[in-house]
């Protein structure tokens, strides 16, 4: 048993901590108050190798391991959960499935530009009527000569406005459920794809969330990702990696809240002493620190298993579930420690609180995570799942 990070892990962590502190943190509040896509930050992140972190070097990626990945995502989210969302989606939900399931030609065509910042990716799974029940999605794909023709509406697509490369899931066969689903790499320049409604959100405001309309969108047959009918498998395996990124985001938000609350508790004077001298505040900080550490350990375990090549679905769900609920709880306590100041926008803790909420929802709600974990605890037969 060895809890030590390697020299490379620590160097990567320190580099990205400095980058996030200097380049992202000073702009985080403004990006929340008047949301704009932080194009300049994303270009700088790409120059550091943060857009395709686990992509092999020969395809333009950084070629780092999953532990490095979550350490970096934590640092980014501690500075701005919105900026980190943009980056983690490009990594986990777009680069990863292409790197794992793509053909050599697809990898050569798409990965270098996704890693360099020339392109940005998005992930089109959720539909208006199919969220947690994603495997029942109804977007259709029919073959027409050398092309697939996709028809349907995708919603809640992170990076939907700015992305030019989309991973889209559609029903290409008659089989019900996951077995009828195929995955496609769809470029925004293909005919028949457009951006619909853009959402106004509670938090992570600088990342766009949009509807993507596929109106007989024509996709070359060579852009089918994986074998026909394996889209469900690709979606679920991709989400295991995605959940690592969200767990890391939640850990980063929780840590930011803990850091701010700790500094405030030390400086805020009431009744002639700093409020950190009161046990009521100390207990909150102690619980915040303990839960944040526990969340980080679950995150690191899941990342470690991934880099060992072991199945880590259960551990990814546990990390995502616990970290997201920790982020919510910790940011809630941080506002309490700040009192009235915590409720207004002059301090960052109300932003952390709003940003934290999404981590309990996207890439599988807390309820879906519990379902996944329960399946592993009880075994599939008890649940009666197909």
């Amino acid at each position, binding site marked *: 048993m060895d809890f030590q990070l390697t020299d*490379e892990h620590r*160097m*990567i962590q320190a580099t990205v901590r400095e980058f996030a502190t200097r380049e992202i943190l000073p702009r985080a509040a403004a990006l929340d108050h008047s949301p704009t896509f932080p194009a300049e930050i994303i270009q700088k992140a790409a120059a550091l190798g*943060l857009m395709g972190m686990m992509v092999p070097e020969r395809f333009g990626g*950084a070629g*780092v391991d999953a532990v490095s990945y979550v350490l*970096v995502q934590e640092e980014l989210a501690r500075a701005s959960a919105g900026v980190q969302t943009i980056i983690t989606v490009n990594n986990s939900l777009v680069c990863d499935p292409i790197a794992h399931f793509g053909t050599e030609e697809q990898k050569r065509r798409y990965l270098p530009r996704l890693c360099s910042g020339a392109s940005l990716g998005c992930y089109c799974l959720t539909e208006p009527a199919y969220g947690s029940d994603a495997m029942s999605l109804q977007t259709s794909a029919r073959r027409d000569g050398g092309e697939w023709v996709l028809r349907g509406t995708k919603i809640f697509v992170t990076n939907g406005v700015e992305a030019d490369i989309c991973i889209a899931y559609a029903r290409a066969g008659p089989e019900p459920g996951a077995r009828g689903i195929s995955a496609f790499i769809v470029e925004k320049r293909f005919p028949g794809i457009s951006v619909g409604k853009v959402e106004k959100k509670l938090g992570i405001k600088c990342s766009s969330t949009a509807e993507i309309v596929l109106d007989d969108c024509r996709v070359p047959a060579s852009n089918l990702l994986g074998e026909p009918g394996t889209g469900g498998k690709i979606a679920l395996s991709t989400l295991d990696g995605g959940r690592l990124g969200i767990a890391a985001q939640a850990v980063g938000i929780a840590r930011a809240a803990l850091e701010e609350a700790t500094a405030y508790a030390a400086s805020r004077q009431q009744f002639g002493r700093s409020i950190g001298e009161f046990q009521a505040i100390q207990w909150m900080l102690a619980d915040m620190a303990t839960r944040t550490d526990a969340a980080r350990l679950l995150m690191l375990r899941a990342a470690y298993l991934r880099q060992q090549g072991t199945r880590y679905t259960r551990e990814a769900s546990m990390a995502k579930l616990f970290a997201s609920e920790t982020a919510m709880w910790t940011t809630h306590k941080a506002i309490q420690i700040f009192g009235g100041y915590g409720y207004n926008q002059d301090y960052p803790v109300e932003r952390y609180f709003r940003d934290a909420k999404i981590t309990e929802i996207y890439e599988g709600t807390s309820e879906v995570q519990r379902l996944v974990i329960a399946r592993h605890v009880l075994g599939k037969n008890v649940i009666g799942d197909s």
Partner: protein
Amino acid sequence: MNIVVCVKQVPDTEAPIRITPDGSGIDETGLTLVMNYYDEHATEAGLRLREQFGGTVTLVSVGPERAREALRTGLAMGADDAVLVSDPALNGADHLGIARVLAAVIKTLPHDAVICGKLSTDDNAATIGAALAEYLGLPQATAVAHLEVDAAGTGAVVHREVEGGVEVVAVPFPALLTVERSLNEPRYPSLPGIMKAKRKEIKILTLENLGLTAAEVGVAAARTALVRLSPPPARKAGRIVEGDTEQAVAAILAFLKDEAKVL
């Protein structure tokens, strides 16, 4: 163009410094050590020259084995090679001794330009660059805030920040330059850079490898000796001026005139 950059590992300027009880040095327990900030700018200057003219950037450091980490940072930024001279016989060596060791290493390397930080943030001596230029017999320009190398790479025109103005100096290459922090904005090490740096070997040399002896460069040859380190005096508490605005302004004006004597 072959460029040599001298690098020193120093305590992070943001880290709290504790002095050992006997005043002979700094307590390194739990201390964060980093590449001297000025040396990051020197490395950046070297990398930009390589991008402009081709060639190599080689980092050289003298220090304990842990100084390897500072070299690793420079390799991750993009330097090609790194050499560390590490020898217990150098404990207590003075700046001139260290400069002689650096000169011995650099003499074995092709060098069109040798670049150092203007000073290191730990002991603030700003001596190494100038001494090194003498030992190497190179022309030098110190405290370079702007650097322009001619198109053929045969020399540079530099701006030096001097009291009340800018001094413009031309130096033919090979030359030694020491750089200001205002010269450039150092790049962050990239993740692929960190992974590549991990695979690079850092060559470690002893005095014997360089044909030097402790008597020539070690404590025996030192012309200065560290007598004692002591922490700076604790800052006095600030004064808060009470009263309404008019009274407060008058009190502050009086303070600025009579006590601080800045008005």
